[in-house]
Each structure stands twice: as structure tokens, then as C-alpha cells.
């Protein structure tokens, strides 16, 4: 089971050459454990249901809504963004490619949909735009 890769390491000024296998059994166990941890972290951290839908225009936060409350906003740039109490989505856009509308419904923290022609981004966040406090 030991990987058959050999690796030469030069140690010290004297240039003594020692020989060591790159992967020991233990190394593989550790790597597997780390991978499991990373996967666990990924699923618990990023699959979290978002609390707010943020609308960013030209790089600035324009407005944000609570995801659990239904909302509808018609923007001057011709896009309509809607929330149905569960998710938020571009319902309509005047842009030619409609990528934003086709992105569909967003509900998980970190998910986003962008309408590039209008520089409008709909983003789901954990809450309050992740601010520390509110003035």
C-alpha cells in the first residue's frame, strides 16, 4: 500500500543525502482525515441558509431585504427582483442575455446572481450584510 515514490532530500551544509518515501501509510491517513474535515467544513459553512437578500448596484449596496419576508423591487435599470419568503431571484431584466433571470432562485448564504449589463448583483448573505453593528 506504501506509495512507491522516492524523494531525495539534501540536508545541511555537508550535503548528506538521505532517502525517504514521499508517502507513508500514516501520511495518507492524515491526508484523508484532513480531507474529511475540509469537506465537513465546506458543507456546514457554505450550505447555511441565508437570511438576507442584498442588491448591489455598481459595487455599492443599494438595498437589502429579509429573505423570510416576501418582497418585490423594480429597479430603474429595468430589472425586477423578487423574494418569495424562501428565496430571491431576478424575475425580469431588460438586458439582452437574461443570464441573471436564468440563474434562478437563490437561498443559500453566499449564492449570487449578476446582471452584468446593468452592473447589478443579487447576493444572499447571513444577515445584515455581515456588518458588525448598525448606526
Amino acid at each position: 500500500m506504501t506509495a512507491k515514490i522516492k524523494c531525495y532530500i539534501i540536508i545541511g551544509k555537508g550535503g548528506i543525502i538521505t532517502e525517504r518515501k514521499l508517502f507513508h501509510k500514516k501520511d495518507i491517513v492524515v491526508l484523508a482525515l484532513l480531507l474529511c474535515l475540509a469537506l465537513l467544513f465546506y458543507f456546514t459553512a457554505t450550505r447555511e441558509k441565508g437570511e438576507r437578500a442584498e442588491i448591489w448596484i455598481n459595487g455599492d449596496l443599494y438595498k437589502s431585504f429579509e429573505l423570510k419576508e416576501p418582497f418585490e423591487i423594480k429597479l430603474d435599470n429595468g430589472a425586477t427582483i423578487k423574494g418569495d419568503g424562501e428565496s430571491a431571484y431576478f424575475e425580469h431584466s431588460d438586458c439582452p442575455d437574461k443570464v441573471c433571470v436564468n440563474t434562478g432562485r437563490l437561498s443559500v448564504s453566499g449564492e449570487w446572481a449578476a446582471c452584468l449589463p446593468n452592473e447589478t448583483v443579487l447576493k444572499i448573505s447571513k444577515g445584515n450584510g455581515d456588518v458588525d453593528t448598525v448606526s
Partner: protein
Amino acid sequence: MKKILFIIPLFLSLALVSCSPTRYNTQLFGYFDTVVSVDGYFESKGEFERACELVKETLKEYDAIFDIYTDGELKHLNDTKKAEVSLELANAIAFGIKAEKATKGYCNIAMGSVLSLWHQAREADVPYLPDRAKLEEAARHTDVSGLSYSAYNADKIEITLTDKETSLDMGAIAKGIVSDVLRERLVDAGFDNMYVNMGGNVVTIGNKDGEGWNVGIQDPANEAGIVEAVKVTDSCLVTSGSYQRYFEYDGKRYHHIISPDTLYPSDKYLSVSVLYENGAWADALSTALFNMDVDEGKAVLEQFDNIGVMWITTDNEYIYYGTLE
């Protein structure tokens, strides 16, 4: 031997984790008629508690100075019209006089007689509108020049309200003054990465993770929402909003920021936020600007460098100035 080699870095990383400061936060109640949040990074729970104690002591001390409704030092001066005051109160009044001048009278600590009529109306079991004639009579006694100082000895100061109908209300600047005191005391005590939020008066120390504390500006139309997020480092963000304190009469809302021009709640804005290094000025300006047209306000702001302002008008228009642009 190999096992040991494996374990050493593990312990090293654990040690590193336990040494890096931890985020703690809490809410304090019962000061300045609002909720006070303390939040930041501290070496230990004990250090955090030490910071909280310092905040509580300071709030208590200044509450007892500025209170005008129960038994504060300022109430005593208002009642007797002539009193020996602490250096803290004298300094605060001196700042108030300076702020009145700088804001062309739109933030006026001598408006106590007018504000108390609105306070009574708002706090009544059945809220009512204050009598117009009474408001106008009270407004005749709001001149800050009717204040006289006499300093005798090094630390004994007597203040006289020469107009016996004048009373002082520091509500528009008290929290700002306290936020500056809090910052000074917390920094002196060795705290370098935290903030205190006194019901919309946010004072930050340090820059969180290198980028600054992320402070939202409240959406006036939605209690849970924000309209803007601002990075605040060693500075103060103060918002005066019509949604913060109000009462309803005959289906209409009357909020707490009273215009010296109309003697009624100012109806130009939903909120005005000021980002400035000095908390007392930020507080005074947020109130003054709330009562002024944008152009008048911008003229006043020319006296200040590195200041940022956001107005949200009653028509829901957003206007930005300076560092908030």
C-alpha cells in the same frame, strides 16, 4: 520519536490559536435610555469583562451628569439656574456653546425649554401635541449667550443661567461626548480592537481584521435592514433618525428631533449619518444637519476635514458628502 515530531506542530498551532484574541460581545441596559453593545477582540474572557466594567462605570458616571429628568447634575443646574458644576459638565457645556456657533444654532443645548414640552407630550399616557403658544414662548428662552461662567479656584466652576426660563438639554451631544471619553479610557486601559454602540452612536477602536469595523447604516423603512455598510477605523459613525424615538398622534408620527425654525419635528430627512473621528462633533452635526437644508449643511461641513455624511431625505433620496461619497 516520529510521533513526537508529529505532535509538536499540533501543540504549536493549538498554542497559537489560544493566544490570538477571541471575539466577545454583550449588551448593556439601563444607560442613556438605550441599549449599549460592547463587541471586540480580547485576550481572555476576563479582559473582556474588565472592558465591560470600564464601559459601565463611564456610562453610569456620565448618565448622572447629563440626566435632566431624575436627579442628574444638569437637572440640578436647570432647577436652581445657578450651580457649581463638575469639570466634566463644564467642559460639555463649553463644547455645546462651540457646537451651537459652528452649526449656526441648529444644534443648541439651550433648547431645553422647547424640548421638555415635546418630551412631556411624548411620554404622556395619552400622547398629545404641545401647545403652539407655549412652544413659541419657550423658544424665546433658547439663547446660549444667556449662560455665564465663573471659574474660581482651579477646579470649581459655577454656571449661571442668566435667563431664568432657560434650561439646558445635552441630548444631542451627550452620547457623542461619552463615546470620546470611552475611547480614551479604553485605549489607556490597553484595549485596541473593539467598538461600543450606544443606540446608533458607534465608536470604534482599531481596525478589526485590518479592514476596519463594518458598520451598517440603518434602513429607516426597515428595522432589520441597512442601506449602506461603512468601514470604520478609530472613528465614530453617528446616525440621527426620525425612526429612533417618536409618538403617534391622530395617525401621524412625531419624532424627537425638533427644528429650531419650526419648533416641530424636522421633516426634511428620515436620517442623517455622520462619520468623523471626533464623536462629540459627529453627534452634534448629525442633529444640526437633520434640521438644515443640504446646501446649508454642506456650508457648515466646510469647517471640517475628513468628514463623511449621508442624508436620507423624506422622499427616500440618498445624498452623500465627503468620505462617505
